[in-house]
């Protein structure tokens, strides 16, 4: 190889590496990729359902999923966000941990204009040749959605927030037939929104296209969420196999997963949300190592080192070719 060609190749490699570093450090996004894989390794310790900040999650390699506004159907909204996703399993259950930035903790739905923070994960119900539309699935290829809401978490942590909590000074003489559910029709109809005795902050839902999202018969997804220092961390947990009609997961198999985030402070709800496309979720039999592992900053440091070394070599090559 001639020295000028060698110099050109080296310079291209240098430029590519420099670009990668800039993109990584600047948190800049390229087009969202279908090839990003979220790997759920086997947890090396018990995964506690009530603590999304537990140390066991250090063993789960995070991926950054880019989200963008939902602009396909009215009502449109949401915007660019990034969700950090992690996953683990223990051969019985799948655990998904999502983390995203949100400046405010919006937990109430008690007044006319309050909306709650929320996050959801979506899986195809059945694995097939083709992946369902990430927009709530297709009529022939439904999706299973697990949605966590801050308001439901608050109900569990602090107790059901009722009208007396929202308006402590309101005075009402009497409420006739107070104990009869029929006067609370949503409760009477079995709508999980109207529950006063929640056991999980996560709703289990099914959909087969826009406008068809429906609560499933079985509310079988556990989880918990905690807001800390301007970020939410929300944990979802469900049995790998919950029977016919819901997404199933197996070790050494892959499926697809998508994420959505709502910011209550911005009146986001329903289609007004930030969504990812489908990514790949693989359940690996590898044991996660929560004792250590390489952190993102370490990767960045190594990349900078490599780039600097390559740059130095390229500069030296250029000087040599100049001397010749």
């Amino acid at each position, binding site marked *: 190889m001639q020295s000028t060609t060698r110099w050109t190749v080296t310079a291209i490699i240098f430029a590519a590496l420099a670009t990668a570093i800039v993109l990584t450090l600047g948190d800049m996004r390229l087009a969202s990729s279908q090839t990003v894989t979220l790997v759920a390794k086997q947890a090396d310790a018990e995964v506690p359902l009530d603590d999304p900040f537990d140390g066991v999650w250090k063993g789960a390699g995070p991926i950054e999923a880019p989200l963008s506004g939902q602009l396909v*159907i*009215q*009502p*449109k*909204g949401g915007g660019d966000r990034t969700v950090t996703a992690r996953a683990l399993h223990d051969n019985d259950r799948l655990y998904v941990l999502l983390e995203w930035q949100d400046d405010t903790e919006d937990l109430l*739905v*008690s*007044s*006319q*204009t309050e909306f709650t923070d929320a996050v959801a994960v979506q899986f195809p119900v059945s694995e097939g040749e083709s992946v369902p539309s990430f927009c709530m699935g297709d009529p022939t290829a439904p999706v299973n959605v697990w949605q966590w809401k801050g*308001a439901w978490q608050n109900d569990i942590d602090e107790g059901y927030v*009722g*009208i007396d909590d*929202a308006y402590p000074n*309101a005075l*009402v003489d009497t*409420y*006739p*037939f*107070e104990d009869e559910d029929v*006067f*609370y*029709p*949503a*409760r*009477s*109809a*079995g*709508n999980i*929104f*109207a529950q006063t005795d929640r056991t999980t902050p996560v709703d289990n839902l099914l959909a087969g296209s*826009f*406008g*068809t*999202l*429906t609560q499933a018969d079985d509310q079988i997804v556990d989880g918990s969420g905690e807001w800390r220092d301007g970020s939410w961390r929300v944990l979802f947990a469900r049995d790998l196999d919950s029977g016919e009609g819901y997404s199933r997961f197996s070790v050494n198999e892959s499926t697809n997963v998508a994420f959505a985030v709502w910011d209550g402070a911005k*009146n986001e*709800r*329903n*289609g007004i949300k930030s969504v990812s496309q489908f990514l790949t979720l693989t359940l690996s039999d590898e044991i996660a190592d929560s004792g250590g592992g390489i952190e993102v900053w370490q990767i960045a440091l190594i990349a900078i080192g490599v780039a600097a070394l390559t740059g130095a070599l390229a500069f030296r090559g250029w000087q040599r070719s100049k001397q010749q």
Partner: protein
Amino acid sequence: MAKVYNWQLGREMDYRLEEAHPDRQFAAVFNINRCIACQTCTMACKSTWTFSRGQEYMWWNNVESKPYGGYPHHWDVKLLEMLEKANPGGQKWDSSQRGDRSPYGTYNGQTIFEAAAATGDENAIGYLPTEEEWTGPNLYEDTPKGPAGVPGVYHTDGAQLPEHNTWFFYLQRICNHCTYPGCVSACPRNAIYKRPEDGIVLIDQERCRGYRKCVEQCPYKKAMYRPTTRVSEKCVGCYPRVEGSDPLTNGVPMETRCVATCVGKIRLQGLVKIENGDWAEDRFNPLYYLIRQERVALPLYPQFGTEPNIYYIPPRWVPRPYLRQMFGPGVDDAIERYTNPSRELLAVLQLFRTTQTIIFRYEIEDGELVSETEINGRTWQMYNDTIIGFDRDDNEVVRVSVDEGIIERGQQYQNSI
């Protein structure tokens, strides 16, 4: 967006869903001229449907004093302003050509659906009322309009017909059970539906997820969020009565609670027949007669585009520009016909609040001339005709004459209470 025909606008308009119609449509006529704002309708509704926790602020029926009152506050002024912003100066009617399918001419402005097309982010323009706007349901009760820009002063010659200088009137409001409901189009979950048998619009309490898009995009603000069940509720059109399944009805359709309890006899409610996407000609259905034949009762803010199904006989003392904005260009004819009623109209007006049973058909038996007078320079004669109302099964349910007669209480009953 689909193209649907809105006869109140006399043209096709954009709507999220394909055109579809029920077999019959819930409809009512409210005669504003007769209302005394006793709020008996309001309390009848409240004590039937919204007395539980989380429904405190819900007034599915309310009576507000116009021009200042409104529940939630200024709901209509806000909507009109939004329409105006979307299409400045464009909310105009062309009433030069009127027909059976365009009785008020053609509306050339934008509806709430069309005004949303500019951004395309929403199905309709709208807003979510604040907590404060849902307080004081009868704020500005009986507050009249005086000279513009001079607070606290009223005209000393305020009450001269045809238009009073100092005026207010009562506007009675329930859900309009619209033909093209803003709430139905707004719901991203398709949790709101229009019943095929009677056109009553209901929120599925199992499907609703409390997003409040219906609250935002119902221009009449008759969908309301209930914080105790975390979902929205709305006027149910007293459907067990209307469908005749309430034990009280004996199996035949019965008027809603707010209609049946009306002290001022201002309300008449029923079901009109729908064929080929429009009201089927049903000449002797009192609602068809009042709304489509005589055109004495008009829709509320037809320009919103939802084809509302509560119709109002406009108050005859109120300045016409205000009424035209509120009820469209049919106002002048409606007031003229109400002020000089035909023999048939006078007879049909007697049916209001004479029976709880929904009247599907009427007949009139001619009576004697009982009085003659002059109205606006024209001779007007009153005949003591008798009108007979029939229920769904064509059984007679009411018989009433124009001249009610005078009954003097006998001496023996004086001060007997």
